[in-house]
Every structure is written in C-alpha cells, then in structure tokens.
C-alpha cells in the first residue's frame, strides 16, 4: 500500500499506515502503550496523558499524534514509566477509589494499570474529596467518587448513542461530569443499553444490580494483566 510508512518504537522498526495514530500503529504491531481515556470506538482527545510517549524528542499523547514516516518514538523508558505512574497515582488520590469494595475491581482499567505499574500504595496524599452518588436512574448508577474525567461517557453518548447525556462541567479541581437533565441522571434519556453505560474504564458508571456476580478469579484482569491482549499479537 502506498500509505505504508516505517516508524521506530523503543528501537524496533515497525510498519504503520498514514492516518493512524501512534497508539493505533503500536497496537497493530503488538506494542502496548498504556491508556485510559482512549477507546477504540471513540475519537481520541488526549486527555488523561497516560499514553504519553516521547516522539522525536518531544512528549506527545500517542492516542492523538498521527504517525509520520521515520518517526522515532520512546515508549518504555524509565522516565516515561515514572511519568505514567505519577499520573495514575494522582487519579487515585484525587478521587475516592476503594478497590476493596468496588464491584469494578478486577475489571477496572485504573486498578489494572496500577497493578501493571506495581503501585501498591499512593505516593501522594489522599485528597478525600466530597463526591456525590447519583442513583436516580432505575438501571444505572453514577458514582462520582470513582470518576477519573476520561470523558469516555461524554463521547460515547454523543458519538455512538446519538444522545448528549454527559458533559464536562467546572474547571480545574472542580471539574466533573454533569448530566443534561433537570437534576440527575434519572431525568435524562439515557438507557441501560446505551454504549455510554458500558464504556467507563472505572466503577463510576455501572449497571445496577450486577454487583459481584462474577467471582474472583474469573474477572477480566484476574486472568491476564492489562495490555497483554495487545502484546499477545506481537509476532
């Protein structure tokens, strides 16, 4: 194909296609770049910065940066690993993430990344912010304690469901996910079958009454660490 180009990730030359992002090209080549806000069904926004790589000497979010022929990319350097660890760490302390009784435990991308990065306890002080639980919807629970502001729900509702249920509101530390309803999620047109109900990487948006139906040992990341599906395609 005429669009085929070559890029180098951590010294390994791989093939890529023009129009791909670094993340997409790396995925195809079986190289895992950690990510949280990125999702294959959604347009990337480069928000969480967990996928930060060094591209030709400059830090870039791999989920939004398009590939160019001859690009030299650093992914698994000690500096980048530490940088990603710091970001994940901050996400834990900025919310109220209690894995021990969270039903997303074992299926949670944030928790899985922490395990992958060997984070056993946060290095930053807990903020213990006051957050709300919105249980007004009959089938969906919105627990702001666990939100990491990835905005997957905002995009999924708009791009995949053709709705506009969620919106980022506020600035800085006060930024949060709001709903386009009179008061709460129960006032919106969200349905349990919406993609937005199923796309949260953490336990913020969960389907009600599912809880702990999947036993320990059979959850997604009980079987293999996050990223191993991508690394598994490596030739």
């Amino acid at each position, binding site marked *: 194909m005429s669009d085929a180009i070559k890029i180098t990730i951590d010294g390994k030359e791989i093939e890529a296609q023009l129009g791909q992002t670094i993340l997409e090209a790396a995925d195809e080549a079986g190289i895992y770049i950690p990510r949280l806000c990125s999702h294959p069904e959604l347009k990337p926004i480069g928000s969480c910065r967990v996928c930060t790589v060094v591209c030709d000497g400059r830090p870039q979010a791999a989920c939004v940066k398009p590939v160019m022929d001859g690009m030299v990319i650093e992914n698994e350097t000690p500096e980048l690993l530490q940088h990603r660890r710091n970001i994940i760490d901050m996400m834990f302390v900025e919310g109220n993430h209690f894995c021990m009784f969270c039903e997303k435990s074992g299926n949670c991308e944030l928790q899985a990344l922490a395990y992958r990065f060997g984070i056993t306890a946060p290095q930053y002080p807990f903020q213990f912010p006051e957050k709300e639980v919105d249980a007004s919807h009959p089938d969906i629970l919105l627990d702001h304690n666990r939100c990491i502001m990835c905005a997957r729900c905002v995009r999924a509702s708009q791009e995949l469901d053709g709705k506009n249920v969620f919106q980022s509101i506020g600035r800085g530390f006060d930024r949060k996910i709001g709903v386009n309803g009179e008061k709460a999620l129960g006032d919106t047109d969200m349905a349990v079958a919406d993609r937005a109900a199923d796309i949260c990487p953490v336990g913020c948006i969960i389907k009600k*009454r599912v809880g702990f139906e999947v036993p*320990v040992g059979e959850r997604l990341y009980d079987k293999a660490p996050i990223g191993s599906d991508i690394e598994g395609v490596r030739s």
Partner: protein
Amino acid sequence: MTTKKITIEPVTRVEGHGKVTILLDEEGQVSQARLHIVEFRGFERFIQGRPYWEIPVLVQRLCGICPVSHHLAAAKAMDGIVGVDVLTPTAEKMRRLMHYGQMFQSHALHFFHLVSPDLLFGFDADPLERNVIGVAQKFPDLAVQGVMMRKYGQEIIKATAGKKIHGTGAVPGGINKNLSIEERDGFLKDIDQMIEWCRASLKIAKDYTLEHIGELADFGSFDSNHVSLVREDGAMDLYHGNLRAITSTGEKIFDQVDYQGYFKYIAEEVRSWSYMKFPFISSLGPETGWYRVGPLSRVNACDFIDTPEAEAARKDFLSITDGKPNNITMAYHWARMIELLHSGEKIRELLNDPDLQGTDLMAKGERRGESVGLIEAPRGTLFHHYKVDENDQVTMANLIVSTTNNNTPMNLAVEGVARKYLSGAEITEGLLNRVEVAIRAYDPCLSCATHAMGQMPLVIELEDAAGNTLDRRVRG
C-alpha cells in the same frame, strides 16, 4: 463517697483493643469493672447512600477475623431486599460451607493460638512463655494442628467466597460460584484428619474444664440468660434459624421468633464510657434482660445437634449440670470445641452433597425496602438490619455484633474476677492475667464490636472514687 479505679489496658490476645477500669469504693472493695471500648469506626453511618448489592462486600471490612460472618449476615439481609426468601439448594449449601469453614478456622485459631497458652501453662505462668510461641516450642504438634486446621477452614472460604479474606461469594439472592469437583476432592482428602483433630481438641478442652472445675466454677461466672438462633425443630443451626432466649435455668423467655422482628424483643442501651452498646431482652428490661451469646449459649439453647459426634459431646457437656444450662464462663472453651467438631462434621456432610456442583446459583423476587439478616457467627448471634430506598441506596443500617451482645457479661466476668483476686490497691500480675483470661473466654472481637480497628494490647487502671489513678499496668 470515694471510689478507687483500676485500669487494664491494653487487653491482650483478644481481637481488637480494650481497656479495663476497676472502680473501688471507700472500703477499697471492687464496686464495678468496666471494659471500655475506646475506638470508633461508624460503619452504620458511612454505608448510608451506598447501593445495597455492595453491602455484603463492603461491610465485611469491619473485621479481618470473621469477615465471612458479616458478609453472610449482610447477604442474608440483602436476600430479603431482593425479595428472595428461599435460595437455590446450591446457593444455600455453598453459603453454609463458607460459614462452617469460617467457624472452623475461627474456633481453631482462638483455641490453639489465643487460649491454649492459658490452659497448657496455667494462668500464673510467665507471660514470656504463656503465648503461642511458647506453645509452639513445648507442644509443637498441637501448634501445627492449629495452623493446619485454620488453613483448612481458610481454604474452604477461598473456594466458596473467592478469597480467604474479604471474598465476594454471597450476592443478594444467591452465590456467584459453585464448588468444582477438584476443589471438593481436595477437601475430602483431608476432612477425616481434620475431624480427628477436632476430637482431640475437644478432649483437651473437656479434660481441662473437668480437672479445674473447682476453680473455674466461680471464675468470673454468673447466671445469665442465653440467646441463640435455633432451627425450627430446635436443632443447633449456625447459619439460619429463629431466635430463642432462655433463662439461666433453661426456661424459655421467647422461642422461634422470626428475626425480621428482632427489634421487638431486643433493645440496646448506650453508656457514656464505651462506644459499645449494651443490648438486652426488652421484656425483662436493661437490669435483668442482658444475655450471653456464642458457643456456650448455643450449646445451652439448642435441643440437640444434628451431627452425631457433636450431639454426643453436647450430652456429655450438659451432664455436669444435670441437663440444665451451663453458666460457667470458662465452659465457653469446651462449648467452642463442640462446635468445632460440629463444623467439621457439617463440612464433611456438605462436601458429599452433589448440590454443591449445581449450576442454579441465583433466585429472584420482588424488591422490598427493609430486611434483617442474622447468623450465628463464631462469637455469637450477629444482627444486620438495613433499609434501602427506591433508588437502591441504603438509608439505615443497624448492626448488633456478637461481642456487643456479650458486653454486660464481659463486664460482669471482669468484675467477678477483680472481686476475687484484687487485694489492696495494687494490680498484681495474677490479677492482670485473670482479667485477661476471663475476657478471652468470650473470644471478643472488639474491632467489630465497636466497628474499631487495631491490635489489642491491654491496660488496667485502678482508680478511686475521686478519679485518682492508684495503679496502672500495661501489657502490649
């Protein structure tokens, strides 16, 4: 009027943290003893607003010792919330197996690691020897048995709940897994050895009690009411049943009470010096309505035990009191070992039941707003009571944990020991030891009783009526 006060803090080899104060009157006689629970966690408040299906996993974090009891009591309450009164056979039996595994490991831990030093070395032995390390050195076989029995119970918990501590197995309306053939066969391989060790443990507890009956009969002992769940036919049932309360001589105060209405029969009183509440039987009032729970009360309250060896042991136990309830505090240990054997027999019975390999795990029903779950935890009757709103959020939680039920009895046991062994205004080593032994008979879990945390060292203070501390001893 002046009284003096003795304080023992921290109390050792019990689960949690405690402090004992002994108050003296003007004549230097013991006027009252108080076991203070000085930590506070407040689970009842902070689970408000959480979704109901999360509670069995959340609330078990009260404790790392018997989380299964809280897990199952909450799950039973949440069965009611989802309108399920009868579980599928697989779900019911998996939960029972989890519970007997829990009872097995907890009783083994308590007897071998916490209590056996007192029984094997005597109350007055040097504390440097009178501990689990001393047991391991002098009675290595026994120490290994204790570890292996605890491990067996813990492995059963893992196979039924997913993890040895703080699992997720019981979900509202059922269970999330069955028992595989491989898991079952792994347990069947060792069950006969476990039961053999149960018999040996029971013999140690029984022989000890009978040999020392003269001293033990009035060692922190007193007549009391007893409360326990019993099955509809009066059998001991540690997982499910109706409430029965009996007097110290065995007359029934109430019987076969559906625990959904427990609050019509049991009330709680708050006292300023402890975070732990004082429950009592409403019809008798706080003065005489207090009661004991746990192994002693369960063996006293039931009409029979439905496993043969434990039933024979129960008859043996009651023969020393002519079939009447046994009110000797130190007899808790003997009763606990009868339950250990019963749990072993029950585990064997369940492992041989093909229902454990069934695949029908969940039942469904119509949502309700309020429900109560009770279970006989290792330390006694455990009450969980919840209200849940139409958005699925918990709006009210009331927990009466086993140790809380034993609050007044533990205070009386300490008082009795202090009256007998305190001389002058000094806390002797002998007094310190005996206060600890009396408290330990109840296997108190002070962490869940106050919903508090931490290790439990012991402080005793002796104080006069003016509030002056006369003496203070610490063991950590």
